[in-house]
């Protein structure tokens, strides 16, 4: 049992190192800047926490929870990365959906803020972190699922990189939503499981991300053949019509 924390730490550190190596190798990080920024935060957070644990152990809990809250908020970067990669600015679906998606995201964030305020009313356990984890986690999982569903609906091909990032993050967010809610319900009984479940699920997400970005596999970019250019078609039609009219005039008045 005493080996388990060391095993998790070693596994997490190895996976983070592998992930950073794959992102840096071949410049993959340049293609996914928001994802790389989040990974960069995670790595620096863990290095900082490791240093604090050994240099100033008394400060460790406050640093742990504060950096954890920032971590939860920064996960929105991943959602933005998935959205902008699946529906780039040039895509017609982006133009059509951007307003609705923004409205949906604002509505969901409003709901989660309401849910967050309500945490003070819970009888058993008051933890801002757990309240944030479950409400933000739920909204983030819903947003990722919505993007993947829209991509499927519009038959937008999703490359391995973004697919892996989105699905791993969705699984992790939904799992932490359920786990942190259960912890709040039956705190004493579930807390030992949550203590292991949280880092293990995070390590699983890191493993899936490493697999996803192992080689650069972006989404297929729509070619000129896939796009309909109504302005171009109208222009060609007008040109042909003009020629037809001038030919008719020439025939009628030679």
């Amino acid at each position: 049992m005493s080996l388990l924390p060391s095993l998790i730490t070693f596994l997490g550190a190895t996976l983070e190192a592998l992930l950073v190596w794959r992102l840096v190798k071949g410049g993959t990080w340049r293609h996914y800047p928001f994802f790389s920024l989040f990974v960069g935060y995670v790595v620096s957070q863990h290095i900082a926490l490791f240093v604090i644990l050994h240099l100033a152990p008394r400060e460790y809990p406050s640093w742990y929870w504060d950096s954890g809250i920032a971590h939860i908020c920064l996960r929105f970067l991943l959602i933005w990365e998935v959205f902008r990669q699946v529906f780039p600015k040039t895509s017609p679906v982006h133009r059509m959906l951007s307003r609705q998606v923004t409205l949906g995201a604002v509505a969901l964030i409003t709901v989660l803020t309401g849910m967050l305020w309500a945490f003070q009313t819970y009888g058993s356990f008051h933890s801002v972190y757990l309240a944030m984890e479950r409400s933000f986690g739920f909204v983030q999982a819903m947003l990722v699922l919505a993007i993947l569903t829209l991509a499927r609906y519009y038959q937008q091909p999703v490359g391995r990189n973004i697919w892996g990032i989105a699905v791993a993050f969705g699984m992790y967010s939904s799992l932490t939503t359920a786990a942190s809610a259960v912890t709040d319900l039956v705190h004493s009984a579930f807390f030992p499981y949550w203590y292991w479940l949280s880092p293990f699920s995070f390590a699983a997400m890191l493993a899936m991300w490493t697999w996803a970005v192992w080689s650069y596999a972006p989404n297929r970019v729509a070619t000129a053949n896939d796009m309909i250019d109504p302005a171009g078609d109208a222009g060609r039609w007008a040109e042909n019509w003009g020629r037809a009219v001038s030919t008719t005039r020439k025939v009628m008045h030679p």
Partner: protein
Amino acid sequence: MIQILSLVLLGAILFFVFLKIAIQGPSASAPDSSAVLAVRQMVHLDGLSFAGGQRLLDDREFQMLNATAELREVAALYRKERQALALVWISLLLGDVHGLWRFRRFLVRSGVPATLHDEIQILSDALQAMVFLSFLRVIVLTFGPFAFSGAARNAQGMVEKMSNASAHVLDRLPRHGWPEIERNWHKGLA
């Protein structure tokens, strides 16, 4: 309390939804539409171009006729005709599979880059499609056209998968080389 309980439930549901997506795996990138069209134009996929395959094996009209005692004879005739049509359609699909397989071998022989994994994949797809279509033919012959009404989509999907795989390979060639490929292909057929 209800809010936390609902989040436990929603979190669990979402997790299983994502797990299902993860098991399905990333969608294979669709080939370029012009390559798909070019393959269909070169190989003449008669079975795949027939849009009514699903309707052909659908038993709703037969059941409607069969439900009325006076129309039972008509229903039997209808079933027999449908059986003949379904067999013709399955033969056309089998022809498509053979054509696509041959076209794929022709592309590789012509120097289109392909890996061994690609070749094993297409071989496996072709064998699967042929076994499935032969099995479907036996089923239609033995039990009639409506015994496996859901199989039409699977049959078409298998041939479409092979067509897309060929389109992927063709897409690796520069577009200006496609007419020459088409000419050589038809020359080889003649």
